[in-house]
C-alpha cells in the first residue's frame, strides 16, 4: 500500500505531469495528420525519452498512445483519412456527420466515448491484470480461430446492401492479405520479386489509398460544379453542432458495450484493434433502435468504434505488462521503450518494479484526463478545418497523405501502392462495393489464416483432441445460429423497407 501511495505521489510531480501532457499533445497532432498514426507517433517520441527518468518517459509514451488514438479519430472524422485500419470504422459515421455540418458534435462524441472506453479498460487493467492475463493465455490458436470466425460472421452484417458484393469485397481483401511471406514455409507469395512486399502490403498506405484519396478526388470533382456560390468543405453551420447531455446519455449502452468488447479483445493478444472496432460497430448497429442511421452520421456508430478501440489500448497493456507479449504494434513499441528504461515486462513486474507500475497506472489515468481536457480545447480548433474551402484543403490533405505515407510506410514504394489502391477504391465506390469490407478482409485475413494453420498443425497428429477445446467448439456451434439471426434481421429490414 505504501509503495502504491508513494508511486502515485511520485507520478504527480510536475515533471511527470508535463511529460504526459507533452505526450498527449504530440500524439493528438501526429495522429491527426493524414498518413501518420499512433504507432508512428510513439516511434517518433521514443528517442525523445532516452534522457528522461523512466516514469516521465513511460508517462510521455502513454500520453502519446492515448493522444494518438484521439488524433486518429480527428483525421478520420474531419478528413476521412484513417491513420490506422481501425479508424476506418470511425470514418463510417464520423465523416458523414462532419460533412453534414456537425464536425464539433462528431468530435465531441468521439472524444467522450474514447475517454470513457479508455478509462474503463484502464480500471480493469489496474484491478485485474494478473488474473486476466492467465485467463488470456488459455486462449491458444484454436480458440483464437474460433473467436475470429464468429466475429467475422457478426461483422458480415456490415456488408451493405448486397450480401454478395460484401462477400466479394471481403474475400478480395483476404486474397490481397496473402501477399508476403507464407507464415508456415516462408515462401514469398505474390511479391513479384519486390522485397518490400515480403512482410505484406503496408496497411496504412492501403487504408488511406482506398478510403481517403478517392474521397478527395470525388470532392474535387464536385468542386468543378460549384459555380457562383462560395463553397466550403462541409455544409454550413446549421446550429445543433454541440453534443447535448441528453444525446450523450442515450449513448451510454453503446459506449459501455464498446468498452467491454475492446477490453476483452485487447486482453487477448493477437486479435487487435480493428477487430474490436468493427465488432463493436456491428453489434451497436444490431442493437440500435435506428440501425438505418448507421453509415449516415449516427452518433452511436461513432461512439461504438471509438469506445472500443480506445479500450483496446488500455487492455493491450495487460498481456504486455504481465507476460511481455505486445498485443499490437503500439504495444510492441512500448516494450522497446520499457527495455530502454530498464523495465522488463513479465510476471514479476508487479513485485520488482512496483513503484514504476503504480506510477504507470497513475500516469494512465492522468493521460485520460489530459486527453479529455486538451482534446476538448483542441477540437474547437480542429473543427475550424471544415471552414477552409475544399479547393485549398483537399490538395493539402493529399500532399500530407503522400508525405505521411512516404515517411511512415517506407518510401515511394508505399506511396505508389497508395495511389494504385486509390484507383481501386474509386472504382469500388462507383460500383457500390463496400470498401470497408475490403479493409476488414485485408486486416483480419492474415490473423484467420495464421490461427487456422496453427490449429491444423497442432491438431494434425491427433484430430480427435479437438473435443478437448470446449470453449472453441461452443463458439463454432454458435456461429451458424448468429448467422441465421443476422440473415433473419436482414430479411425483416428488407421487407420493412418495401412496405
Amino acid at each position, binding site marked *: 500500500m505504501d509503495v502504491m501511495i508513494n508511486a502515485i505521489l511520485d507520478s504527480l510531480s510536475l515533471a511527470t505531469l508535463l511529460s504526459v501532457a507533452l505526450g498527449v499533445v504530440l500524439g493528438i497532432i501526429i495522429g491527426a495528420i493524414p498518413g501518420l498514426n499512433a504507432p508512428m507517433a510513439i516511434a517518433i517520441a521514443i528517442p525523445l525519452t532516452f534522457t528522461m527518468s523512466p516514469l516521465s518517459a513511460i508517462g510521455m509514451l502513454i500520453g502519446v498512445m492515448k493522444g494518438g488514438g484521439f488524433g486518429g479519430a480527428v483525421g478520420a472524422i474531419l478528413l476521412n483519412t484513417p491513420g490506422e485500419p481501425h479508424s476506418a470504422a470511425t470514418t463510417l459515421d464520423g465523416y458523414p456527420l462532419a460533412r453534414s455540418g456537425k464536425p464539433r458534435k462528431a468530435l465531441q462524441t468521439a472524444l467522450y466515448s474514447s475517454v470513457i472506453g479508455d478509462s474503463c479498460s484502464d480500471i480493469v487493467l489496474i484491478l485485474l491484470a494478473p488474473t486476466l492475463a492467465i485467463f488470456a493465455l488459455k486462449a491458444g*490458436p484454436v480458440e483464437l480461430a474460433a473467436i475470429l470466425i464468429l466475429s467475422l460472421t457478426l461483422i458480415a452484417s456490415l456488408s451493405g446492401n448486397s450480401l454478395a458484393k460484401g462477400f466479394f469485397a471481403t474475400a478480395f481483401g483476404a486474397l490481397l492479405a496473402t501477399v508476403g511471406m507464407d507464415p508456415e514455409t516462408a515462401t514469398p507469395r505474390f511479391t513479384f520479386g519486390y522485397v*518490400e512486399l515480403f512482410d505484406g502490403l503496408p496497411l496504412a498506405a492501403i487504408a488511406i489509398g482506398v478510403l481517403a484519396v478517392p474521397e478527395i478526388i470525388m470532392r474535387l470533382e464536385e468542386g468543378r460544379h460549384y459555380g457562383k456560390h462560395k463553397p466550403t468543405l462541409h455544409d454550413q453551420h446549421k446550429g445543433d453542432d454541440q453534443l447535448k447531455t441528453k444525446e450523450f446519455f442515450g449513448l451510454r449502452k453503446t459506449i459501455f458495450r464498446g468498452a467491454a468488447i475492446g477490453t476483452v479483445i485487447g486482453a487477448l493478444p493477437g486479435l487487435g484493434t480493428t477487430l474490436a472496432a468493427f465488432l463493436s460497430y456491428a453489434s451497436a448497429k444490431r442493437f440500435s433502435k435506428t440501425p438505418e442511421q448507421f453509415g449516415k452520421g449516427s452518433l452511436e456508430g461513432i461512439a461504438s468504434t471509438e469506445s472500443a478501440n480506445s479500450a483496446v489500448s488500455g487492455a493491450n497493456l495487460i498481456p504486455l505488462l504481465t507476460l511481455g507479449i505486445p498485443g499490437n504494434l503500439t504495444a510492441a513499441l512500448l516494450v*522497446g521503450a520499457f527495455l530502454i528504461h530498464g523495465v522488463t515486462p*513479465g*510476471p514479476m513486474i508487479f513485485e520488482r518494479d512496483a513503484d514504476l507500475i503504480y506510477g504507470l497506472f497513475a500516469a494512465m489515468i492522468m493521460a485520460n484526463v489530459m486527453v479529455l481536457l486538451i482534446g476538448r480545447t483542441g477540437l474547437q480548433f480542429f473543427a475550424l478545418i471544415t471552414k477552409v474551402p475544399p479547393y485549398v484543403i483537399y490538395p493539402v490533405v493529399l500532399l500530407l497523405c503522400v508525405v505521411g505515407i512516404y515517411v511512415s510506410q517506407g518510401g515511394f514504394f508505399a506511396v505508389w501502392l497508395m495511389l494504385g489502391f486509390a484507383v481501386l477504391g474509386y472504382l469500388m465506390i462507383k460500383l457500390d462495393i463496400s470498401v470497408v469490407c475490403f479493409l476488414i478482409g485485408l486486416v483480419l485475413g492474415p490473423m484467420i489464416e495464421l490461427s487456422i494453420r*496453427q490449429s491444423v498443425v497442432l491438431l494434425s497428429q491427433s484430430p480427435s483432441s479437438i473435443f478437448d477445446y470446449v470453449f472453441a467448439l461452443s463458439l463454432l456451434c454458435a456461429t451458424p445460429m448468429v448467422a441465421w439471426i443476422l440473415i433473419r434481421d436482414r430479411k425483416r429490414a428488407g421487407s420493412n423497407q418495401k412496405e
Partner: protein
Amino acid sequence: MKLMTLMKGVLGTSLILGMTAPALAEFPEKPITMVVGFKAGGGSDTAARLMASELEKSLGQKIIVTNRGGAGGGVAAAYIRQQPKDGYTIGFAVATTFAFDPLLGNVAHGLNDFSYIAAPHGYRSVFVSPIDAPYKDFKGMISYAKERGWLNYASIIPLDRMIMNYIGKQEGLKVNIVPTRGGAGARQAVLGGHVDVSFSGSNALPMHEQGAVRIVASALPTGMPDYPDIPSLKSLGYDIYSRNYAVFFGPKDIDEQARKKLEMAMARAVRSPVYSDYVRNKFRGREIFLSGGELKAELEMQAKDFRHLLKATEE
C-alpha cells in the same frame, strides 16, 4: 581586400559548420544516413539509434536514422546495394540477412554484394519451454515427445525451423512446426502451454530468471558463460548452431578510408557506458565487437555451415 573577404567567408563558413578539421577534406564532411533494416522502436532499432548518437559525438557529424524494415533486413539490404559508395549511406541489419537468407533463393542480394563495417553486438537465441511442462530439460523433452510421437515447436524465422527439423531428423522424431508471427506470438504459445518448445531471442532470459518459462537450450555454439546450466545444442550432441550478429554494412567497394573511420568510431562507441549498458543489461545481448574483416570471415563461415545444414535437412 578581396582576399580578406574570402578569408572571412571561409572562416565564417567553417565556424558555422562547426568544423575543427584542417582544410583537407576528411570523412565525414556531411551528415551520414543510417538505414535501419527493422521497424522503428524495436530492440535492434534502439541499439542502432544509440549507436548513431555515439557516432555523432565522435565523428562530429549528424547521423540521420531512417527505417526500412521488412524481410529480416532484406529491404534495407536491397536499398543499400543501390547507394553511392562514398560511406555517407550505411545500413544496419543482422548476420542472417547475409549469411542465411540468400541461400533460400528468395532475395536478390548475396553476401558479396556488400562491404562490411562492423558487428557492434551479438544476439543470444535460445529454446524455451513452458514452466509446467512434464520435462525439465532438452533431453527430457525429446524423450517425452518421442513417447507421444511428435514435438510441437513454435518457429519464428526460417533458420530456427531448419535447426529444429535437423534435430527431428537426427532423433527420428516428427516435428510439428507451428508458425508464429514474430517473437511475441511464439512467446504467447509457450506461456499458454500450447507448444512444447519455441525459439526466442534474449528477452526470454529475464523470464527464465523469474521462473515464468524454462530455457532448455542455447543456440550459441559455446552456450552462454553466465548461464552454465543451460546447454548448447552442440553440447547436446547436435552439430548445429545459430550465432547471430548486428551488422553495419555499406554497398560493395565502399570508400575504404570512410569504412575504416566508421569501424573505428563504432569500436569506440560499443565501449561507451550507454551502449554497453544497453546491450548487457537491457537488451541482454552478447557483448562482442567484430571488425569489418572479422565480420566478413564470420559471415562466410556461417554461410558455408548453413549450406551444409540446408542440404542435410533436404535429404
